[in-house]
């Protein structure tokens, strides 16, 4: 069931700045069709020309478009590595190891109401998941949170795919507060929840899901070196002991985790 991994030299097709802290890289393989990738999987991107960094950077797969043979990566400019990736320009090559990790469980029935909850740059993999659900004839509901309106990413892309609800901490867009306070959670029932975002947000959503007996998956982003399950650096404590987030995850059912 695991998809075959590849090392590919991608070519950057376009670079788009989303505010001053995020860069969207749309990439293609100029020589071959991109390999199959699942929502929630990630790539290990090699960072060239950065003296301060050494390792690849794990970046989630934001979107895959088979027609244009494109894969998108949404990069938050945090440290030297992500900043170096964010400086790539159209035409530059980007060496990627992909696809890695398990990915989100996809709903099997069109009747399943799925809520996709994202916070900050954690919204990235949810776009691809929502798009895949749409292709399967489902309509996903997105609940996206950010600190401020200008940190809400790719809203128009999400709106093409499903229903979008928004919270911001300062109330500059959507409802004011955290995702777990949004009124949609009190108005509608969801059969399952998939979450990706900052750890406190995921823990809050996990708590909500548990309290309401809703199956819930979260995507973790522990620091990792290899991305292949060899270095054992990215481990998370689970009910099965320490496991690699890069291979057993990054997506975990909340019942597998030892979160309080």
């Amino acid at each position: 069931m695991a998809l075959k991994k590849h090392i590919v030299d991608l070519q950057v097709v376009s670079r788009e700045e989303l505010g001053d802290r995020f860069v969207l890289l749309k990439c293609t393989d100029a020589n071959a069709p991109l390999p199959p990738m699942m929502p929630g999987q990630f790539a290990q991107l090699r960072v060239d020309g950065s003296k301060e960094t050494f390792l690849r950077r794990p970046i989630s797969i934001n979107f895959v478009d088979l027609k244009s043979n494109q894969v998108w990566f949404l990069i938050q400019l945090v440290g030297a590595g992500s900043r170096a990736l964010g400086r790539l320009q159209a035409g530059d090559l980007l060496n990627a190891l992909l696809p890695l990790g398990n990915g989100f469980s996809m709903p099997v029935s069109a009747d399943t109401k799925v809520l996709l909850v994202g916070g900050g740059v954690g919204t990235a993999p949810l776009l691809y998941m929502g798009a895949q659900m749409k292709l399967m004839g489902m309509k996903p509901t997105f609940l996206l949170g950010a600190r401020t309106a200008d940190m809400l990413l790719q809203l128009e892309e999400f709106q093409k795919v499903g229903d979008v609800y928004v919270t911001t901490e300062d109330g500059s867009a959507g409802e004011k507060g955290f995702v777990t306070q949004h009124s949609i959670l009190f108005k509608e029932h969801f059969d399952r929840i998939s979450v990706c975002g900052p750890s406190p947000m995921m823990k809050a959503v996990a708590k909500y899901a548990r309290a309401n007996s809703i199956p819930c998956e979260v995507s973790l982003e522990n620091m990792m070196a290899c991305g292949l399950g060899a270095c054992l650096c990215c481990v998370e404590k689970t009910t099965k002991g320490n496991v690699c987030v890069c291979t057993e995850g990054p997506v975990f059912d909340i019942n597998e985790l030892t979160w309080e």
Partner: protein
Amino acid sequence: MANLSTNIGALQLKNPVMTASGTFGYGLEFEDVVDLTAIGGIIVKGTTFQPRQGNDYPRMAETPSGMLNCVGLQNKGVQYFCEEIYPKIRNIDTEMIVNVSGSSPEDYARCAACINELEDIHAIELNISCPNVHDGGMAFGVTVEGASSVVRAVRQAYDKTLIVKLSPNVTDIVSIAKAVEAEGADSVSLINTLMGTSIDIEKRKRMLSIGTGGLSGPCVKPVALRMVYQVSRAVNIPVIGLGGISSATDAIEFIMAGASAIEIGTANFLDPAISVKVAQGINEWLDAHNVASVKDIIGVAE
């Protein structure tokens, strides 16, 4: 095509490039992106008699030209290895070598005795140099007495090729190498990681869960190369060189320093296919310089 085969005691490798323990899993994790049979040997992750959970997260910190890790020998134990992993890797057409660790000489010997029963495993690498565990590991590798006691116990339990992996965190690595040779080791591999640390200045806290970790990557290469040079001139058993090797040039430096074979570690994280590229690069260099066999350049550096 030059002759790339090399020998570590009774063990014959098809080429001198192996992958280092803890950086290449059981090989299987990499098979999508690299031809495992083109690698000279695969040293699988550290195995102990009892299962170990390893240290808490965070276990790594990036450094310029390298990284620190404090994984702490997480593994499912030798019984799991023998029953679940060995059947999947025994027929891979390369030398599969098991890295063995423990908390006492008896513990090492018990683990080695289990591996001794596995027909298709022809060598073990004894890890007396892990800097990330409290009980055992490097504690044995930093004294002549400690290193000797482990090798003595394991030698009685293990009758195939015994490689001993040495710690660089010592005053005189040559004395340790000579001691393990005297106890019957067939080869020494060096270096394991150099102990270091890293601090998050915003949190005013060391980054790794146990405070310290082992440094690896290109930044350690000159230290490793110097030690390989020194040790290979002081012992009569073959030396395996490792520490920051990321290219064929690096590998040839180690071979010229005196290594009969080399291991690639951290570089596997940057390019999972690097080991095969290094083996090809060694071949190209030998051909370009009209050298018939890799054995002809072992230890030639003045």
